């Protein structure tokens, strides 16, 4: 940076300041452009045309290795993931505190192990192809009228105008909760953020694309089905940027040939109906057999 060592006029100083500001603006513009071309993704949270908040997610590195039955290890290396368009939409709703159009639909008229039915038809049905998220990616919170029943929540996979399908009723400690009582009140979303912590695999060899809404050919068998990944804080945030990791050690129970991609989701289901948040092509495809352990670690960068 140029250092001012002599006495300068106010006009000269103003011109110099503009020059540096333009250079800085250009650098920032270039950087953002770079980010949006493969090394990460930016979430823009807008109210109307006005940009309220910008959150950067990425670049996120994904590491995978296989521990074979004989104890030998195959390192599959590092690759980077992709925030999908549908995942971007889900994230905007979370950070912006979106409330479902039509209201929550409380109280319920029926509750099952994987569904809750609203009073009337208050919701817009989800359809990932449109794309119309509906309630997909939100959480529903409810309670059970039992002496041991805790408040529970479900991650919403999809919905019709009156029925929300969830993965299961979760307790606060990641157990299976008691099914809530029908006829009681419940809350959907209203600023509640789900967790992108469910990891899925596929042998589909297609390239990862931001337009993908689900993980094509998601594996559901042999211990390689979608699973809850373990969260851990990473580096201490510095300069508004920090990382955390999501890791899953798949305990394989049968042969899977050439696992190519990994996806991160907000619900524990393999129905292919819920939106995929991140998609990653593994650096090297993984072929595993009964007794092997496939460990996948996603290091997510989160910054403002």
């Amino acid at each position, binding site marked *: 940076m140029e250092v001012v060592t002599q006495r300068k006029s106010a006009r000269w100083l103003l011109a110099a300041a503009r020059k540096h500001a333009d250079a800085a603006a250009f650098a920032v513009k270039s950087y953002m452009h770079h980010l949006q071309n493969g090394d990460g993704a930016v979430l823009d949270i807008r109210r109307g045309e006005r940009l309220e908040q910008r959150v950067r997610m990425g670049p996120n590195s994904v590491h995978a290795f296989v521990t074979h039955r004989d104890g030998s290890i195959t390192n599959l290396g590092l690759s980077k993931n992709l925030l999908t368009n549908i995942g971007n939409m889900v994230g905007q709703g979370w950070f912006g505190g979106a409330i479902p159009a039509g209201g929550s639909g409380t109280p319920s008229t029926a509750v099952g192990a994987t569904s809750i039915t609203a009073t009337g038809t208050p919701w817009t049905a989800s359809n990932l192809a449109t794309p119309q998220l509906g309630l997909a990616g939100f959480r529903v919170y409810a309670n059970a009228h039992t002496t041991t029943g805790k408040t529970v929540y479900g991650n919403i996979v999809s919905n019709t105008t009156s029925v929300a399908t969830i993965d*299961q009723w979760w307790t606060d400690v990641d157990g*299976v909760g008691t099914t809530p009582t029908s006829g009681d009140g419940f809350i959907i979303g209203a600023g509640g953020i789900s967790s992108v912590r469910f990891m899925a695999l596929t042998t589909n060899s297609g390239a990862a694309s931001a337009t993908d809404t689900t993980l094509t050919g998601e594996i559901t068998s042999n211990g390689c*089905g979608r699973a809850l990944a373990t969260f851990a804080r990473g580096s201490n945030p510095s300069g508004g940027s920090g990382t955390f990791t999501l890791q899953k050690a798949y305990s394989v*129970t049968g042969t899977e040939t050439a696992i190519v991609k990994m996806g991160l989701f907000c619900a524990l289901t393999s129905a292919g109906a819920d939106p995929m948040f991140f998609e990653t092509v593994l650096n090297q495809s993984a072929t595993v057999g009964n007794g092997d352990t496939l460990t996948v670690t996603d290091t997510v960068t989160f910054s403002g």
Partner: protein
Amino acid sequence: MKYAFRCKTCGRLHAAEHAGENEVPHACCVCGSGVQYGPNFKDIATRLCDPALTPEQRTAIAQEVAAAQNNLVKTYQLDNWEVLADCTPEQLKEYGLVADDVERHIASDPRGFQVPPSGPMETVATDKGPASPPLPKAVFVGAAEGSKAKDRA
């Protein structure tokens, strides 16, 4: 969706395909129970409590533990799994299930075929023609792209 197993640790219900080639799954997809990594301390403690052990045997166990610290030892905890097909209707109701929601898992080999019983395979005559052993067969499928093209198998 039909379920075959219930994780005794977290209560998650699992489909039969989760177990793959095995009688029960290796690990729960929610809590990870079913597999323990590292030395099996329960087993080690049980062995060390044996009063008949000689000092040399105790040393050998200690060396075994020390070596295991540096290796990935994987122990399957088969008792983590409740086989739903063996549950009573009352138990199933407690889990929010009915009999129609439950399936029994049959362990299979990597190709997806049911594992045959050990010993020589017997041919059995039926009323539907000559006997044939239930051997897996290879099916080749061809496909051609274009107008008026037909698949053949």
